[in-house]
């Protein structure tokens, strides 16, 4: 099907007519279905390098299909599904299963991430090559949820994936420094009597890993950077030419540890919400490019896993459907920045060639999303497409509405609703 996006603003530029035909941006074609896009901004389809889809294993919290729908509604055309499923995505079989489920849902490209170690146990390297050679064509490997803490194993993993241009995405958390940790270590944790997760536990691992990556000449990606100190480590490493990329989550760009005051576990997340000065440093780092991408760390959890004591609750929060509004509320309509940090750079890191393309060029795969920046919306957990309800933004008024999303020229979202 062909579409004409009439009067659309590509990345905030003057209104124009944009044609989509045969899955790509095209020259004008007759009989295109007209979408009145006046006032709408076109962005390359968003790409999330860090999503938890929970399938297989916790289909009561999310499935590949429901997560894909949430992603499309959030403006995404590709998501990278983390490996901490049950069973763990540490074999070609599991990553192919997730990949196939993504294709069947057909709402976004679901790119599986493979585990670095068998069972995420941090002991023995998983068959990374088999996952890379599988139908899922895995390029990002991560034990996310756990840190690859063993320095020798981390070194070997960084080296090994060079054979197929892979990248290790590290969940940077020195486990001995975070035993029993419940929230950011600081004034609030002291007041609340919750065991602290010190910033240094993240910074120490990032410092170690950039040195390891430098030593072996490999690519490193750092998941969910959360502290000002981590930003400084990354800034120095990048200045030296280390091949490191980093992500920040929307929640770490907006929320602080003071949210824990009422002990509502919807605000429990790993790494934890930090302080105002960390938030400021992360924002600046994203502007500077020290942090390359915004990644959601979308982490659905069933009601019973959050409706309990803080210490017993699982860490994590929803993110796919609110990421763009949060980024818009933090940075304003900086469309080039948003396109780079939420689509172009993540597509490059994940090696997703069809995504993050130039919408002004004919022939670019038509992976894009249309945003109405003039709309302010109140986040209502009941309206979310995700099975889970653990959004920390309930009741918040956020700017921007995703009006339509296209995956290879096919609409996945129209008029703000998923087409399937």
């Amino acid at each position: 099907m062909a579409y004409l996006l009439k009067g659309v603003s590509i990345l905030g530029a003057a209104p124009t007519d944009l044609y989509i035909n045969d899955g790509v941006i095209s020259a004008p074609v007759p009989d295109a279905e007209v979408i009145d896009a006046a006032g709408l901004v076109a962005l390359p389809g968003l790409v999330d390098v860090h999503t938890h889809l929970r399938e297989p294993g916790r289909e009561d919290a999310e499935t590949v299909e429901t997560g894909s729908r949430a992603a499309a509604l959030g403006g995404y055309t590709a998501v990278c599904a983390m490996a901490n499923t049950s069973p763990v995505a540490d074999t070609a079989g599991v990553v192919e299963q997730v990949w196939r489920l993504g294709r069947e849902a057909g709402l976004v490209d679901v790119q599986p991430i493979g585990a670095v170690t068998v069972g995420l146990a941090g002991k023995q390297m998983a068959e990374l090559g088999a996952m890379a050679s599988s139908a899922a064509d895995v390029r990002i490997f991560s034990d996310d949820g756990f840190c690859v803490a063993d320095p020798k194993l981390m070194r070997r993993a960084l080296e090994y994936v060079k054979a197929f241009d892979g990248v290790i995405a590290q969940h940077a958390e020195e486990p001995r420094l975070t035993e029993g940790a419940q929230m950011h270590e600081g004034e609030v944790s002291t007041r609340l009597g919750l065991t602290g997760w010190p910033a240094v536990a993240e910074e120490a691992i990032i410092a170690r890993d950039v040195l390891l990556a430098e030593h072996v000449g490999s690519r490193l990606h750092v998941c969910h950077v959360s502290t000002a100190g981590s930003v400084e480590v990354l800034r120095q490493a990048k200045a030296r030419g280390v091949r490191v990329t980093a992500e920040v989550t929307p929640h770490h760009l907006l929320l602080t540890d003071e949210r824990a005051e009422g002990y509502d576990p919807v605000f429990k997340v790993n790494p934890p919400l930090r302080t105002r000065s960390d938030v400021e440093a992360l924002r600046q780092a994203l502007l500077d490019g020290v942090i390359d991408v915004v990644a959601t760390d979308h982490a659905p959890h069933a009601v019973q896993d959050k409706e309990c004591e803080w210490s017993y609750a699982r860490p994590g929060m929803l993110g796919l459907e609110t990421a763009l509004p949060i980024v818009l509320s933090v940075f304003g309509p900086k469309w080039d920045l948003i396109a780079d940090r939420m689509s172009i750079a993540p597509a490059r890191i994940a090696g997703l060639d069809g995504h993050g393309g130039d919408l002004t060029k004919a022939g670019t795969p038509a992976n894009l999303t249309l945003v109405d920046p003039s709309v302010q919306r109140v986040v209502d957990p009941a309206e979310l497409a995700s099975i889970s309800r653990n959004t920390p933004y309930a009741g918040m008024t956020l700017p921007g509405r995703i009006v339509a999303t296209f995956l290879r020229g096919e609409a996945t979202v129209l008029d703000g609703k998923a087409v399937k």
Partner: protein
Amino acid sequence: MIKHLRSAADLDAATATLILDTAAEMAALSGREVKKLPALRGRTVVNLFYEDSTRTRISFEAAAKRLSADVINFSAKGSSVSKGESLKDTALTLQAMGADAVVIRHSASGAPHRLANWVDGSVVNAGDGTHEHPTQALLDAYTMRSRLGRLDGLKVAIVGDVLHSRVARSNVLLLTTLGADVTLVGPPTLIPLDVAAALSKSTKVSYDLDSVLPDSDVVMMLRVQTERMQDSYFPSAREYSRRYGLDMPRMRKLPEHAVVMHPGPMNRGMEIAPEVADSPRSTIVEQVANGVSVRMAVLYLLLGGK
């Protein structure tokens, strides 16, 4: 009056003083032959204990019974996530039974805050994890006031494992609200760096017990668990005892009028020498007796007893 007592921070100076004054009236009652008041007749108080704590539970139980309330003891030890019912479901059960107040002891910090979302009655924190134990702080303040006649300007040293102590947190909050000067003493591993900013700006920190004692009106020794040793908070029980234990030579450094407190249960010979615990300066047994009066006052005021 406040509805819940989840934290000592729920209490402003006027409310805290009202509780202490009411506790004094309740204490006068205990000298009488008939110790019961009809104030909470027909009201139901549930003691919901997820941790063993015989002394705190019987203290609350005695308090509620002396006010003629119906008392239900609900021991939920070992319950919660891994087996049995969730806190929410337990709360809904208590709610359906018409609990007017739930006294909760729980190993998870913040459990009373969560509970208050699910019950209509008053929630009283009887110790939650490493967070707070506000009625302990009230009975400590009551004990200080009855021994020394005042709280305003009183110099109080709290010694030991402040990091993991719910007693310390509640005491810092309550005592500074009531005008006392608090100094926290212990090894740096057991005193949070930002404790003053977190709890009360006027709080001081010292790592040297000997220098603090001569200028203290009250020294409160916290229980130190020997397992902390395994986790490298300090090298050995003996070293801890040598540096931060209150023994007879140290006690002699205190001013004549100063008192020695301990929330119990004590590790005799660890943080406190037996001769000190049993000395006339020690208020340890009084603290237990005062606990009942203070908890009576809390239940009476929270439940609007007449």
